[in-house]
Each structure stands twice: as C-alpha cells, then as structure tokens.
C-alpha cells in the first residue's frame, strides 16, 4: 500500500518496525527469560539479557505448589462450561436474529449489543447481593451465568453475521424435504457456521479464563478459587522475593489460552473481524 523506496522512507519504516516491535515483543521475552533464570540471577541490579544458566527452578516451584493445581482445575471447569454454554445460547440467539422476524427483534438485538457497555463492576454490586440471596455465592454457577452474558454480545453478532451469509433457500429446501425446524437448524445450518462457533467458544473460554473482577468477588473459599485471583492472593504478599516464580506462574496461566489461540487462530481472526470488513 505504501512505497518504501527512498532511504528516508526506509528509515521511517525501519524505525516504526523496530520501536513498536520492541514494545510488543520485548516484555514477553523478558517474562520468559526471567522465568528461566536461577534465583540469584533474577536479583541482579544489572540484569542479563540472556540467562547465563538456564534453570527451571521457577517452574518447579510453581508446579510443586498444590494450590496452583487446584486453581488450574477450577479455572478449567468454569471456563469450559461457560464457553460451551455461551456458544450454544449465542448460536440460538444469532440464528433467531438472522432468520426470523418477530416483534421486538430489533430492540432485543440492540439490547444484547449494549451488554458490553455497562460497567461490569456496577452490575457486580447487584449480582453479588443477588447471588448471596440465592445462596450462589462461592458457587461456580454465579461465575458461569455472568460469563455467558458477557460473551453474548460478541458471540451473537459474530454468529448472526455467519447465518446472514447462509441463503434462506437452504432452509426452504430442507423444509420441502420434510426436515423439522429443529433438525434443519442443528443438522444443516449450525454445521455451516462452525468457524463462527469456534471463535465464539474461544472468546468465551478466554474471557472466563482471564476474568479477575468477578472471580475475585463471587468466589470466596480458597479451595474454589480460580487462577487469576488465586495467583494474586498467592504471590502479592510475598512478591519481593519471588519474581522468577511469578513470571513462571504468569507463563503457566497464559499457556492454555495461547495454545488454544495458536491452533485456532484462523477461525478466530475471521470471526473477530467479520463485522469489520463490511464497514
């Protein structure tokens, strides 16, 4: 799109590439390198940019910590369930908004879209009281219900734009062949929207996995804690002495979402920017 021919243009390009590249990539490099340094090398006022000795001390400490395993299991339980449920709810809603006409449809569509605008912490004031009243405090149901709702705007719209591309004639011909509406939806339409479903599921998983505010507030007993608040409560008090371990722990929490993303990147970017290309 832009010409890079003259030395001046080359300089500008190279500077932009280097400066932003450094900003984007160096911190992650630093996290990995710190996690791989032995304890005394981490606490060097003149840090080494390449570790003199590679050590897995930090990771060992993380994995020997029983609490981390509990948090990991809890986070997986919550994230997998809310991701699956959110995808299902969003698929039905997206299909409904795309292929059916009824009173209030447009209002509902925009209502769902506004869900991401209201301050989550303000909603949390009531959600906290509500869950306490129903006895769902310290129960994963409280987290899962909240996460489903927060994933809906993105998920519903991504899936709606998938369903919009599927011609109505496909539904008509399934009807002529004698398929019921429920069957048409599950067997014919949904499989065509798999990329959208996958990106919604990833989005839902990442959202639940990364959330701090709700998991910090709605879950109170140590045995039920998920990773994000768990790590804070584990390391914040003693942070002066354990930077290597903290970096190793940060890598450990980042790996599941990163792996998921790497394998399914193509789906995800397509889903994420589905609306953008139309604009």
């Amino acid at each position, binding site marked *: 799109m832009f010409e890079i021919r003259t030395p001046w243009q080359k300089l500008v390009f190279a500077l932009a590439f280097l400066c*932003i590249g450094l900003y984007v990539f160096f911190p992650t490099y630093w996290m990995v390198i*710190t996690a791989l340094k032995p304890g005394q090398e981490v606490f060097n006022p003149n840090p080494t940019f390449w570790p003199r000795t590679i050590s897995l001390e930090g990771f060992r400490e993380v994995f020997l910590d029983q609490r981390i395993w509990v948090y990991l299991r809890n986070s997986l339980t919550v994230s997998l369930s809310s991701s699956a449920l959110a995808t299902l709810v969003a698929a039905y809603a997206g299909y409904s908004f795309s292929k059916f006409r009824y009173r209030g449809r447009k209002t509902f569509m925009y209502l769902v879209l506004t869900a991401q605008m209201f301050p989550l912490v303000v909603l949390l004031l009531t959600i906290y009281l509500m869950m306490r009243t129903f006895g769902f405090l310290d129960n994963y149901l409280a987290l899962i219900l909240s996460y489903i709702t927060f994933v809906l705007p993105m998920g519903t719209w991504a899936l709606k734009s998938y369903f919009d591309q599927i011609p109505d004639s496909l539904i008509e011909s399934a009807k002529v062949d004698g398929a019921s509406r429920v069957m048409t939806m599950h067997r014919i339409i949904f499989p065509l929207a798999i990329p959208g479903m996958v990106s919604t599921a990833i989005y839902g998983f990442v959202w639940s996995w990364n959330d701090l505010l709700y998991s910090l507030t709605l879950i109170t007993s140590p045995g039920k804690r998920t990773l994000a608040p768990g790590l804070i409560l584990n390391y914040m008090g003693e942070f002066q002495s354990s930077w290597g371990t903290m970096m190793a722990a940060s890598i450990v929490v980042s790996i599941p979402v*990163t792996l998921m993303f790497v394998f399914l990147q193509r789906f995800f970017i397509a889903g994420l920017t589905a609306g953008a290309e139309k604009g």
Partner: protein
Amino acid sequence: MKRKVHSGRKLTESQFGFLLALPALAVFGAIILYPLLNSFAMGFTNQSLLRPGRQYVGLLNFERIFLDPNILQVFVNTFVFVACTTAFSFSMGFIWAMVLNQGLRGSELLRGITLVNWIIPGTAIGFLWMWIFNGQYGVLNALLRGLGLIQENITWLGRPGSAMAAVVIARAWQTLPWYMAFLLAGLQAVPYEQVEAARIDGASNFGVFTRIVLPNMKFIIFLILILGVIGNLQHFDIIWVMTQGGPAQATTTLAVEVYRRAFQNWELGVAAAIGVLWVLLISIFAFFYIRNLERDS
C-alpha cells in the same frame, strides 16, 4: 426444544424464532438489565454489605461523593487513563497494522505472535509490567541507566505520575493487538484501484494515507475508538494488580473506586451512586455508537 405445545398446534415461525432468542434474553435480563436498574436504585439507598435491608436516603450518597475531596481526582484519573491508553494503543496499533500490511516476509507470523499479548490474562500482564517497572531490579531502570538517561533508579510504581504512566503503558500493550487486528482487516478492505489511481496522480505515501486510507476506514476507526474507550473506562485487572489504585489514589479510576467502596468499605450505596454517574457518562458514548451502527446497516 423437545417440549411439545399441548394443543398440538405447531408454533408459528415468529414464535419459534422468539423461543430461540429466549435463553439469551433471560440471562441478559438477570445479569444485565435487573442489576443495572437495581444498582441504579441502590445509589439512592444506604445499602451496605454489613447489615441486611436498606432505606431510601435521597441524594445523600451523591452529596457525600461531591463533598469528598478525592472524587475529583478519581474522575481526572479516569479521564487521563482512558484518553492516554486509547490514543496511545490505537496509534501504535494502527502503525503496526500498516507495517505488517506491507507484505514483508514473516508478517503473518508476527501478526499471530502480536495477538498473544491480547489473549493472555490481565493478571499475568500486571505481574509482568510490575516486574519491568520494579524499582530495584527492573529492566527499565537498567536500560535507562545503560543509555545514560538516568543516574539513580526510579521507583516507577511508587510515584503518582510515573505510576499512572506505567499502568497506561501496560494496558496499551494489552490492547494494541486488538486495534491491530481490526485495522489490518480494514486496511485489507481498502480498494486497491483507488490507491493505484492516487499513485498515478502522483500522490505521496502521506497523500495515500489521508486521501484514500483514512476516508475508507472512517467507520471502522470510529467503531473501535468507541469500543476502546468503553473498554478502558471499565478496565480493572491491570491497575488492580500493579498498583491497587495507589500510590495515594494516583491510579484510582472509577472501576477501582467502585470496587473499593463496595467490597473493601462495604458501602454499596455510595459505590452504586458513583456507578449512576458513570453510566450517565457512558450513555453519551453508547448513543453515538448505536446511532452509527444503525446508519451503517
């Protein structure tokens, strides 16, 4: 869906469609609509987490908020945080998208790795930047000392101004890939013939950018800026991990303030009153956002 309608009549098309949207509407009502309205009402009561029940207290909470000398600071902090993170992250993301759009070898790979910053948990990002900005062993101090820019180590997170700068840089780092992804998609949708026609007319890179790229991407730029502002306005994780709103309230934004009032001081009523002011503020943005979406479709 297995439940049959008793009379044996089949649902009409629109009834069926409505039924499909029902689960979404139900959770929306329970987790967004009711909490929003109730939190609004709560702002006019003395609701607390320490005792059951609540009484209507009129505008008392708002009075307390406006009489609190720190509240202005919170609004200013929020403004600075939102404006700086959005502007910085958006411009870096835009430049990065243009760089990667040049079709250099390995661009695809770089784009993929860039997105990792956005996908990893805010807690991990907070830890990472705390470590980079660490006053004793942090790599930033070491780098700046090495370049001769500073003589003494700076306790970045211990001073009001630099603490704010630190959380802005960390949050901008997290969202840069998000802007990049949208802007890259937008760049790829710019009609190539228009660029070529401008080139034939002798347009420079700058001319192509202002006359072809920007006008074509107006809608997407507007959209992501609005969404970016709304997201930054509610951001909590990184600030909470890095500074907990300190030092001396210097990084306390609305989100942190509401959390603290509610779940550390147990004053839900006051927290909700701040929320009321906040939602009014957002409605202005929401209005423009929805109006633009409608105009587009």
